């Protein structure tokens, strides 16, 4: 049997397991219209996906993952609640590391259900964990919703909260903004000079381009307003940093999140959601006492995860990509649903890595 057919067989077995768990098998195109993906992810996706085109349909992308086409398919004609499984190749450009595969199989399990998000989170995790049974892996979990709630609850302007929320997925930029808003870094000299001018809008240039002078004036006004806003307090910055540093087993992490919620009441709801998820995971037989939780986990992955996130890794093999990853992407269904939305959570397994591991064993 060739390597590819071994991987296909393994993928089929995984998909059969997901079907037995209640998922309906679905197919998606390999070529996706580039526009929707570009609008969602921006230029980052161009760095990761192969783009091609023809004169009739314009830019197309070789599917970089299944999530977007599966959500689109569900939003177009899916009944609720729904469980889907799929198996097929995805394509990723690898321009910096020739050792990483640019084409590989993914087998996925996705749940679209409004009823009980904690139960759906636990279901997806438990189904994936069961499918990986017998392979020695380390599981990591996180929750993008807790940091988002903490940012929303900061005692500062809406503009600053929006700026921080926009960069949750870019840790370095997030920290730079937090430092700026906390008064820990200086305002750039040119900006200070601009705001000191009597009429900042005077310049010797003609008005060119699509971005109008009204838009420029609006941002100058926003900068001026921001320069007068009080800094975010050292206590709140400390709380955010303490939150980001949480790295514990789930029950201990919950304790720490609750502790922070005393001073950061905005994360109280998120702490309840974490507790409900732990209970739901335990009810599914997951060993939550020993399951890791990292508050920063998922911050550098694809931007669409906005709640529970998880991954399964080969211990001692940092060179290998994760064997499985997943998470909740409620906001993505809003964006793709054009006015409609449905809470959704899912995960994928890479059977190719499983086959490699089994052969090496």
């Amino acid at each position, binding site marked *: 049997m060739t390597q590819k057919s071994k991987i296909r067989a393994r993928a089929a077995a995984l998909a059969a397991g997901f079907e037995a768990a209640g998922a309906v098998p679905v197919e998606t195109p390999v070529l996706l219209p580039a526009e929707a993906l570009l609008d969602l992810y921006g230029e980052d996706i161009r760095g990761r996906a192969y783009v091609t085109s023809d004169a009739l349909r314009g830019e197309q992308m070789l599917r970089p993952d299944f999530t977007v086409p599966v959500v689109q398919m569900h939003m177009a004609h899916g009944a609720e609640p729904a469980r889907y499984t799929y198996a097929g190749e995805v394509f990723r450009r690898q321009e910096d590391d020739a050792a990483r595969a640019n084409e590989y199989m993914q087998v996925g399990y996705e749940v679209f259900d409004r009823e009980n998000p904690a139960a759906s989170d636990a279901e997806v995790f438990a189904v994936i964990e069961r499918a990986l049974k017998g392979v020695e892996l380390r599981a990591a979990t996180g929750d993008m919703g807790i940091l988002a709630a903490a940012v929303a609850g900061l005692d500062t302007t809406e503009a600053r909260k929006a700026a921080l929320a926009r960069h949750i997925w870019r840790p370095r930029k997030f920290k730079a903004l937090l430092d700026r808003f906390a008064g820990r870094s200086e305002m750039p000299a040119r900006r200070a000079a*601009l705001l000191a001018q009597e009429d900042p809008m005077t310049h010797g*240039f003609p008005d060119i381009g699509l971005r109008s002078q009204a*838009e420029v004036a609006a941002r100058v006004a926003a900068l001026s307003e921001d320069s007068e806003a009080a800094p975010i307090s050292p206590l709140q910055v400390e709380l955010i940093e303490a939150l980001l540093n949480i790295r514990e087993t789930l029950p201990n992490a919950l304790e720490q999140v609750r502790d922070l919620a005393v001073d950061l009441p905005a994360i109280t709801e998120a702490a309840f959601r974490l507790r409900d998820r732990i209970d739901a995971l335990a009810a599914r037989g997951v060993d939550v006492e020993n399951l890791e939780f990292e508050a920063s986990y998922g911050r550098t992955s694809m931007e669409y995860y906005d709640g529970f996130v998880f991954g399964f890794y080969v211990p001692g093999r940092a060179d290998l990509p994760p064997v499985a990853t997943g998470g909740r992407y409620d906001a993505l269904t809003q964006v793709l649903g054009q006015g409609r939305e449905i809470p959704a959570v899912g995960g994928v397994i890479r059977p190719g890595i499983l086959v490699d591991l089994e052969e090496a064993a």
Partner: protein
Amino acid sequence: MTIKLGVPSKGRLMEKTFDWFGARGVQLSRTGSDREYAGAVEGVEGVELVLLSAGEIPRELAAGRIHLGVTGTDLVREKLGQWEQQVQEMAELGFGHADLIIAVPGCWVDVNTLEDLDAAAAAFRATHGFRMRIATKYHRLIREFLRDNGVADYQLVDSQGATEGTIKNMTAEGVADITSTGDTLRANHLKILDDALVLKSQATLFRSRKTAMDDEERKVMAGLLVKLGLDD
């Protein structure tokens, strides 16, 4: 049998390259008619001159079809992934200086840094319903630079020439291009962002790491490098 040296096929870049080699005792020249891309090498045996578009030289080096090539650092870094594993920088030739920069309209008084650009892009997207467009031909370099500097809500639009004109033509809001004097930018009412020097480029002699050489070719290469003063 021979060492192939790729050189830009026209213009000042070709002339200055010929001068650089000439000053080191290797005479390069074009032969035949003005329109024929053929060349001759004097002063050293076993070296063949290949005249190519400067933009194609990185690819030819990476493919191992030429042993040495003269082109800009900007083009090598844009066109080759993991460029250091494919080519080796032998010498900076001291001409063809150009900076890859990002520029925006001078009338944007609120935008002088990448932080400003990111914030303006967010507001622009909210107002116009699409991502702020930056026109460039350096897609890879600019995408990596903007990602490393935390700029989001932009998109790159391809522009292979007259890039500075795209803003007035409303097909882009900003540009990322090479400039040596900044004259073209000023003439098009643009200003360079304070912290957006992506790359300093100049004409550079590269050696391909992808060519297989026989003993004779190795000898020719060694002799050529001695002559050029690059044998250390």
